[in-house]
């Protein structure tokens, strides 16, 4: 079961009291709504995959919703977010429109990447969502670039860069941690430790427990959070964001979570037991938060049911939108390769003879 007990305390120290202002009921329901929208969206995507409307790879986020929603809820709309290929949840939490996300999965021209990126490569410049990246760990180096840009331009903004527990064994990640610490970049690396990299459990892939210890060698703050508990995720992330925003210092977070579905839609799941999955479902982040909202009398059963109806309808509408949208025309295959020039003459490019 995920725990949030051991936080390493090397590097700059983080205060214990939460610096987040308390959420009003509206804010709490908004978090609940976002998590549930992601779940319903992913269930719809799974269905569409089975109908062969979605092809290729499709990595679902079910079980991890509190991580994306919790962390992103501590950011401003102008902060930067970048992640790996399991990106639907982050995109929705960032406020990207479910229609354009689903349409991207369907490969349609109305998709958030015009049908050119697919499940693993969502992008939105407007929402400061710097992608969906398919090469494990590759985005960690882009993350320091975003944070470097934020600092260079004195924006006061910060970057969250997500990666998986398997991705932390890529060289790109270590090179980036070193540079982030050395150059004091305003970045938070979030390891979403869901226990597995495809079929390889953490204990079979990564030396050193907890994973966040890897921050120590770089004199970087390290924090562990319970990814099944959105309040814990928010409180811990807020500290890291504050450190980045006020002192321009990086933090490594390990957020412990669990994915219920296969690594991708084509995963037979032989590497773990049914019982293990069922055990984790008892700590379901949405269920947990729902219980808390009711216990704390923030809302009523009826109100929560109404939210479920809404987001279920939103996911269905996204499916319908994607299904009805046009395929990209052939000519678009040659579009979006080069940016237009504005400081030099347009570079004479031609299609090569075939």
């Amino acid at each position, binding site marked *: 079961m995920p725990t949030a007990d051991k936080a390493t305390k090397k590097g700059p120290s983080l205060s214990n009291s939460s610096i987040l202002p308390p959420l009003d009921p509206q804010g709490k329901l908004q978090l609940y709504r976002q998590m549930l929208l992601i779940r319903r969206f992913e269930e719809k995507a799974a269905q569409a995959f089975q109908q062969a409307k979605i092809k290729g790879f499709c990595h679902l986020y079910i079980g991890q919703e509190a991580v994306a929603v919790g962390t992103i809820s501590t950011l401003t709309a102008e902060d*930067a977010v970048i992640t790996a290929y399991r990106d639907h949840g982050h995109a929705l939490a960032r406020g990207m429109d479910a229609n354009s996300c689903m349409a991207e999965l369907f490969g349609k021209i109305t*998709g958030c990447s015009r049908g050119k990126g697919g499940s693993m490569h969502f992008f939105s410049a407007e929402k400061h969502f710097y992608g969906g990246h398919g*090469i494990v760990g*590759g985005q960690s*180096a882009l993350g*320091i*670039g*975003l944070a470097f840009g934020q600092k260079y331009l004195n924006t006061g903004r910060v970057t969250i860069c997500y990666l998986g527990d398997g991705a932390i064994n890529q060289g*790109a990640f270590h*090179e980036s941690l070193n540079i982030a610490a050395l150059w004091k970049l305003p970045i938070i690396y979030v390891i979403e430790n869901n226990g597995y990299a495809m079929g390889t459990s953490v204990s079979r892939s990564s030396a050193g427990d907890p994973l966040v210890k890897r921050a120590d060698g770089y004199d970087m703050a390290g924090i562990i959070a319970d990814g099944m508990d959105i309040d814990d995720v928010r409180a811990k992330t807020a500290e890291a964001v504050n450190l980045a925003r006020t002192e321009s210092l990086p933090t490594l977070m390990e957020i412990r979570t669990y994915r219920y579905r296969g690594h991708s839609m084509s995963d037979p799941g032989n590497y773990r037991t049914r019982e293990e999955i069922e055990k984790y479902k008892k700590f379901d982040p949405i269920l947990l938060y729902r219980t808390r909202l009711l216990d704390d009398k923030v809302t009523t059963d009826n109100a929560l049911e109404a939210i479920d109806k809404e987001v279920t309808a939103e996911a269905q509408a996204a499916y319908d939108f994607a299904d009805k949208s046009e395929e990209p025309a052939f000519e678009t295959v040659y579009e979006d390769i080069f940016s237009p020039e504005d400081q030099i003459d347009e570079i004479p490019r031609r299609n090569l003879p075939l």
Partner: protein
Amino acid sequence: MQVITYREALNQALSEEMERDERVFLCGEEVAEYDGAYKVSQGLLKKFGPKRVIDTPISETGFTGLGIGAAMYGLRPVVEFMTWSFSLVCYDQIINNAAQVRYMSGGQFSVPIVFRGSSGGGLQVGATHSHTPENWYANVPALTVITPAFPDDAKGLLKSAIRSNNPVCFIENEKLYGYKDEVPEGEHLIPIGKGKIRRAGNDVTIISNSGSTHRALAAAKLLAEDNIDAEVIDLRTIKPLDFDLIAESVVKTNRVVIVEENKPYAGWGAQVTYEIQKLLFDHLDAPVNRITSLDVPQPYNGKLEQSVLPNEERIIAGVRETLA
């Protein structure tokens, strides 16, 4: 006109562009306090300070990715590789990130970045340090590949590359850093994607780039003593290719010899050859000849290395064969 080295020409381009645009910064190994492994960035730290001239750890993946992320964020990085041979360590960042992000994002993000550094053989530094990587990068759809041979082009093309809104691989040649020639002072832009005739002639078209242009010119001079009048085209930009310039020349000479330091299999000359036979078949009086490096790893031994490179002797023999 000032007569300066290829190295100084590059330095002027960097300096002028950094002065012109605050968003331009230079990062790489030893570019700041050491003044550059090949002294291309000499004096820039003093002039622009450590915010904009930045020594990096020996982490090609880290600082290349950083540059790409910063470019996506609106800066205009110049990332120096001590040599392009070391870019293999971050091939992923260049190919999968710099060159795909715009496409994969449906055109939402631009990557205005220049990757630059030295390259090429002939300095007896062995197989790991002697790569000529223009064909590797030219194979990638969204990359622009520039390989200047002369100081004026080095300056004018680097300035254009920095002003481009697209990722550019700017591949310098280690053997040319000390080469001196006339270079215009101040504003001097050479258009990307345009070749240049460096020697006019009627009998045969020699197409070359970078260090090979100098070998081709030397060979042309010797051939002239034998009344063979070679035209030498310096491509300057490998991708996009200036096919119009090639076509004009081939229609005149009807014979082509390509001189390239790439290894033969899928070196850039293979593409140029394909295009010539496809589009200019009726104008050819002989098969296109290619003088490339030999298909072997680069040896350390000086004599062996010279025989591996496309040397003058092999160029001259190739031209004679084409004219026979």
